[in-house]
């Protein structure tokens, strides 16, 4: 499978380990990710907060370029995915707007391609079968709380690849690599998203609720598919712990990192060094008997 790859701003900086692990896992399971040439920022929350047209127009440029490549788009970042997919749906439905925006674009988007999340692409039954085949060490003992947040599952009418109230794709992926995802109840709660910088007090509270629930249900790490969630969960867990008076230290992984780990793809371990929260406590929990024979 070949996809037009849209990294997005975060994966180029704060979430570079997501970028790396995505590429590595993609290579390992035969999902070829071809960079969209000269892509631009999707506009993220800021664009659709302030200027609706812009929030469609910015993704449209990327979609136009990708359409020229003749491939569906994969966006690993949940925010990029959500914005791009929303723009795609709106552009497909609203011909007037599409024509208007296309007039400003060098490469117009006609609606020939679709946007997918890397989670969606990496958790199809075929992809998981490939992962399963490639496993060298089962992650038995790792008890992740699979955290989806908002942007991967909502609004379901636009995204619709996983259940909005009890999404399963991450859990399935974790089960495939031998980890034991816990049953918990905050997997689709919001982490505060872009308030990380501007209204950190909101984020602190929400992060506290989330990690606390994960801990309560026996998780020894959280796994996510969203750079924003990652940043908030990592950066605010200390403050959240302080606020709640609990120890909320909790390693957080991108799902691709764990997939790569189980398949022991070369270079995956380098990713763990980039984490702000030490991940060793979780990695240590992986029991020895998970190692595959040979």
């Amino acid at each position, binding site marked *: 499978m070949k996809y037009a790859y849209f990294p997005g701003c975060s994966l180029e900086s704060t979430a570079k380990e997501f970028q790396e692990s995505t590429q590595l896992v993609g290579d390992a399971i035969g999902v070829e990710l071809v960079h969209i040439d000269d892509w631009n920022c999707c506009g993220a929350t800021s664009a659709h907060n302030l200027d609706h047209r812009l929030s469609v127009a910015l993704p449209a440029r990327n979609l136009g370029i990708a359409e020229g490549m003749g491939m569906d788009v994969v966006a690993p970042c949940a925010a990029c995915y959500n914005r791009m997919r929303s723009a795609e749906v709106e552009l497909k439905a609203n011909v007037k707007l599409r024509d208007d925006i296309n007039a*400003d674009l060098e490469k117009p988007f006609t609606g020939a391609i679709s946007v997918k999340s890397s989670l969606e692409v990496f958790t199809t039954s075929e992809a998981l079968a490939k992962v399963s085949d490639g496993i060298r060490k089962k992650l038995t003992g790792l008890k992740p709380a699979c955290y989806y947040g908002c942007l991967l599952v909502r609004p379901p009418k636009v995204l619709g690849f996983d259940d909005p109230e009890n999404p399963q794709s991450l859990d399935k992926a974790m089960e495939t690599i031998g980890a034991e995802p816990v049953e918990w109840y905050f997997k689709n709660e919001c982490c505060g998203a872009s308030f990380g910088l501007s209204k950190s007090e909101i984020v602190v509270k929400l992060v506290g609720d989330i990690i606390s629930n994960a801990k309560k249900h026996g998780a020894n790490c959280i796994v996510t598919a969203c750079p924003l969630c990652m940043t908030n969960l990592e950066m605010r867990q200390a403050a959240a712990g302080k606020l709640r008076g609990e120890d909320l230290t909790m390693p957080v992984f991108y799902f691709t990192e764990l997939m790569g780990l189980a398949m022991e793809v070369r270079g995956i371990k380098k990713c763990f060094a980039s984490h702000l929260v030490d991940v060793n406590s979780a990695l240590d929990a992986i029991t020895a008997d998970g190692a595959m024979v040979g």
Partner: protein
Amino acid sequence: MISDEKTQECMGVIVSGCPVSPEFKREIQELCGENVMSCYQCGECTAGCPAAFAMDITPNQIMRMAQLGLKDEVLESKSIWLCAGCETCATRCPRGVALSKVMDASRQIAVKSGKTCAEPNVVKFHEEFLRQVQMFGRVHEITLIALYKMRSRKFVDDVLAGGQMFLKGKLGLIPSIIKGRREVKGLFRK
């Protein structure tokens, strides 16, 4: 005090002390396609909203105000800036109304009408973000953080985490700039 002129303009409901703008709901509908009159005030949006605790006006009250035309109340509220856009309300609304979109529309109206924002930092963040996109085509996070901090005068916060990120190699020093800047700028013009 409501001036005589205003009283005449707003027939219908008079909410003490609040000017009423019956056009508001239509403005919202034109911008985002949602009909606020569909809301029957069940409160499910408030119940599920992750940011409701920080809001000055609950989400369902925002809808009620929009229904009545209390435009200023809505546009001057903190709530519209504290919506994280998580879409929980839209997903669960029994009337199929996407309150999240109403929030988007309200923010856009607020910005256009030059209202003083109740949560200036949020706006500053978004403005800075978009300025970067307009300049470079992408967002350079270290510059974003730095510039945002300067504008919002929040110097102390997060210095620790920022430093750590820098050390982890996550915040590059050189912003990446795309070739199609002119094209992207063009998208901003409307």
